[in-house]
């Protein structure tokens, strides 16, 4: 038997040696470089949110002093916070990289997306615009900033997630990922979603933002904002999301933990007005990121998985 499975001598796993942020960073750089080497037309999804800000930093680490070997792409719901959109444009310009923006609003105007009601969240509809954009440019790999700790359905996601010609994700038909050997082979019309920061947690993201001294949109920091209490969450009051009948508008000191679509993203009560305070607050958090901030995921445990199957990020 021992001849069949002989003992192992001195096996070093990288994760054991490097401090954890360095290890996460090096892993992400490795993934970015592998996929750039093995695909022909990749792109990086950049929304102006914290995860994609970290992704841009990792792209700098992977490829500077060269230009990024891919454009930045944003699928804009046109329901984004203006501070975040302004940040997105400023950051892309500062890096001197090409930014492609395609909007869900355009898909609606073209009739590619039909809303059931005008104030319905546009988040799920990003899928149509995203797949149209992939076809328009012929992208074969899209880097995204999703993390496995965000949500149960994400916990089983591969780092390279394979999508068929219709953009669909089949959780039963994903390629096994062994060691750090990624299989990026594709048939015509297929593409990959690639998640280099799969192994990061919300706390890692903030620690990295602190360490790298990265700028983030102002609404991540504590500020005064008009909100209403709704279903245990604080819903922001904006022209797009007015208070409902009978709700009382109050001004609270809040910050956003995620900065998605205005119609479904809620801030949390907070006094954290520096990155260091956010790190401390995140380390002590008692509610998950999505639980505290997302109205659209609460309907059912499985809602994220359904959207993923249909081609969502």
């Amino acid at each position, binding site marked *: *038997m*021992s001849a*069949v*499975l*002989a*003992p*192992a001598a*001195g*096996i*070093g*796993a*990288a*994760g*054991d*040696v*490097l*401090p*954890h*942020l*360095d*290890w996460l*960073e*090096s892993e992400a*750089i*490795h993934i970015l*470089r*592998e996929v750039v*080497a093995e695909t022909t037309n990749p792109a990086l999804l950049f929304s102006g949110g914290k995860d994609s800000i970290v992704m841009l930093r990792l792209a*700098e680490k*992977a490829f500077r*002093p*060269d230009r990024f070997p891919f454009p930045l792409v944003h699928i804009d719901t046109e329901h984004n916070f203006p501070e975040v959109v302004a940040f997105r444009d400023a950051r892309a310009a500062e890096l001197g990289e090409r930014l492609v923006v395609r909007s869900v609003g355009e898909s609606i105007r073209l009739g590619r997306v039909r809303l059931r009601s005008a104030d319905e969240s546009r988040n799920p509809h990003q899928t149509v615009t995203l797949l149209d954009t992939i076809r328009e440019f012929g992208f074969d790999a899209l880097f995204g900033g999703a993390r496995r700790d965000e949500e*149960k*359905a994400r*916990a*089983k996601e591969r780092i390279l997630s394979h999508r068929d010609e219709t953009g669909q994700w089949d959780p*039963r038909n994903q390629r*096994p*990922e*062994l*060691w750090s*050997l990624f*299989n990026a082979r594709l*048939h015509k019309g297929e593409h990959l979603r690639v998640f280099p920061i*799969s*192994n990061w*947690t919300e706390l890692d993201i*903030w*620690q990295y933002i*602190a360490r790298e001294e990265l700028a983030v949109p102002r609404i991540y920091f504590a500020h005064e904002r008009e909100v209403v209490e709704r279903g245990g969450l604080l819903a922001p009051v904006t022209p797009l999301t007015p208070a409902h009948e009978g709700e009382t508008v109050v001004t609270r000191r809040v910050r956003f933990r995620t900065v998605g679509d205005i119609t479904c993203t809620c801030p949390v009560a907070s006094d954290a007005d520096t990155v260091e305070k956010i*790190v401390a607050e995140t*380390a*002590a958090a*008692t*509610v*998950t990121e999505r*639980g*505290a901030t997302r109205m659209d995921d609460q309907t059912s445990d*499985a809602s994220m998985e*359904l959207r993923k199957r249909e081609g969502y990020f």
Partner: protein
Amino acid sequence: MGTGETLREFTTLRFTTSGSVDDGKSTLIGRLLLDSKVLLEDQLAAVARTTARNGADGLDLSLFTDGLTAEREQGITIDVAWRYFATPRRRFIIADTPGHEQYTRNMVTGASTASLSIVLADAARGLATQTRRHAAIASLLAIPHVILAVNKMDLAGWSRERFDAIAGEFAGIARSLGLARVTAIPLSALEGDMVVSRGENLSWYAGPTLLEALEAASPVDPVTALRFPVQLVSRSRFGEKADRRAYLGRVESGTIAVGDTVVVRPSGVEAKVAEIVTLEGTLEAAGAGRSLSVVLDRQVDVARGDILTHRHDAPAVARRFTARLAWLDRDALVTGRRYWLKQGTKSVRATVDDVLHRLDLASLTPDASAQALEFNDLGLARLTVASPLAVDPYRANRHTGSFVLIDDATHRTVAGGMVEEVARD
């Protein structure tokens, strides 16, 4: 949990968990997370709701690791699920893999990146056939440390004799498999004894709790041989004395330093390291796990797929070798057919010339009469690659000794491979 400064110096332990169905693996992970106080209010509330909907009281701890809809409907885990948690001492990544017979594939996947494996056993039922298989996979994938978690001690009357008997039997298996480091821990995932807190029922046991064992698991002796597989070549930089190109990659093992003479494998040409570059500036030296760029002191021919190493411990360059294969695809292995083989950053055409044996998973004995490998089989095979490859035996280096086979028609990853013996050409 501390703030940025303290956590920054943490290291990560990646571990895998396996057990046969109903040994209590999901409950154990739930207990570990609950008692480490890393579960948050909304997660607790969601599990409490589902527990009540299922007609039970309190918290069903097994629900925390539960994932996709189809699995929830079938009530089973069918894939690798990744879990993250940190204690004040360490950060952990769990690869949670199922124990069903047909899912060797997932177990091998989860084990490939783990430095520790928790193998579960049921104290009341003793070691199952599958427990042996889990230990065999830990050995095959060269996981340096195995913890035998003898669960459900409450159902075995918290009996020391029972634990000793199971631990003793497992020690025999571990010896025959060549597992170097084994820690056996009696515990009850349901009651919590010896998972995070010591509890009151196992006072005869003096060893570490499960969490203590995980926090203390030491990094194994690092591999000292330098292996730097080149991922990309950047052509737009650097001064005149040096090679104007930079080689982008990650140090997979060993250390690289400015001034080192490095050998390019497989070509064999040599050059000195002129600079090690990162976004922050240049480094004098860098160790395993670091992504960086290397500039050499003269112009040499280096491409993606090449490996930079030191002359004194360079890997063998070969076209033929034997390897253990874990067959991961529903389409069985066809000997003589061409597959893509990816090792490090290199992809080459490969054929599996013949199957030397297939491991009988029940008895763990090799069956030399086997002609092919099918879904979830483990075996030993002889391979030939179309162009020379710089490889190490897997036991000497987990990075340069591992590869995957990819079907050139379906593009599926069909096998994981571990180099056994390299034929010098």
